[in-house]
């Protein structure tokens, strides 16, 4: 007897791959936006006073938070791809087990 279908390893492989790609894509977009705003913050030398100080503080806080999101998205994308790989390995092992038992 083989492994019952409901007990076999399952994973939404196709959508996991698409999701990983999309997370990486958005991480890349956020990264480019962050870089552009960081550069822009260095190109306003004539902006001075309390408002300018607040702008630079706010920009720094934003870049840190947005950078965390970029890192988080890339991390999850990597985890998804690792999970897909693990699924393929487990499925292959199952098939070998099935063949051996048959």
């Amino acid at each position, binding site marked *: 007897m083989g492994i019952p279908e409901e007990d076999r390893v399952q994973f939404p492989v196709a959508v996991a791959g698409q*999701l990983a790609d999309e997370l990486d894509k958005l991480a890349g977009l956020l990264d480019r936006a962050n870089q552009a*705003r960081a550069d822009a913050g260095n190109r306003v030398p004539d902006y001075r006073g309390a408002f300018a100080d607040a702008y630079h503080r706010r920009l720094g806080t934003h870049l840190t938070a947005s950078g*965390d999101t970029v890192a988080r998205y890339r991390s999850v994308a990597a985890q998804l791809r690792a999970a897909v790989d693990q699924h393929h390995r487990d499925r292959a092992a199952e098939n070998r087990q099935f063949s051996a038992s048959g």
Partner: protein
Amino acid sequence: MSTTSSADPAQLEAAAAAVPGDVASGLQWEPDTLADLLARFARGEQVPERISVDPQHHMDILRAAIGGGEGIDAELVRVAAAFRTAGNGATRPPGFVGPWMPPRILSMDDAALQSAVSAWLGPTTADVSFRKGAGGAWEVRGPDGNWFRMVDSPPPGALPLAQVEKTVDFANPDFGMVLSAFILIGLTGGQTQPMDRAAPREAYQYVHFDDQGYPVAGPEVAGLSQPVRPPVLGDASVSKIEAIGMVQGGLAEAAKGMSARNASMVHTQTTFYVDPRTNQRVAVVDGAQIRYDNDTNDAIVTSGRLHVDGRGRPSLVARPDTNTSSQPSIGPSTTLRIPAKED
């Protein structure tokens, strides 16, 4: 003790537009794709569970990152606008005759700057009012409370301060925005269709402007018939005044209470700017007539103009060098289709 800030508005505007157009456009539309994929992944069966992904959390941190950046850009534009319109030396000195250019770096009292920037941060309202300003030019009041002269197109190099969106059902019209759409169409020739089903001239007398510049339909309109939809303006021979008159006629007919499903709808985008060449406040009102498909409930543009992106969706406020801009709400369960041959 008052304090003062100084800035070169052009520097601030350049910083506000630093994010490349393709990045801004991607960050506008890709979240839809991500939300869809997250939902599909969350529905997928995992035996055993290998990875837990919280769709809401992922969308929340993405929106926070995108919104935070956009907020910083928007504030830069608004600070620049405040310097341009109220900074010391921004305007021609009284009595000065001859060529004049404002200094590159302007200064401003912090309290005034705070007040000007904060004025944009209140609750966004779709209620837009109009008046005739100096020289008879139409003006529209911005969300910050200032009056902006209506112009045909965005000033070169200007970044949008804000955009107000409105979809108007002629069976239940918001008169101010209906007027804005049709003044625009009448002023700019934004359409190529001939005038169609204009209200009978006698209808005009039943609509009047109140003290605030809003057209008001009187109770007498109940006895009128025809047309079944508001006038479509665009004939090159239609003058502004005639156009406004026909708008009034359309409003009078609309006020009679037509079937919501059969009535024309108007979607408007009012975008506010400060012209970097003149430091004057200006606004562009784009408008389009739409109708709802009875079967699909899609909103379909029948005439007029709206900015759309490459996917046929209404776009956000356009940066000067791109066609990307904010997603308007057309209505629940609707999409906007732009016919191939509109302009």
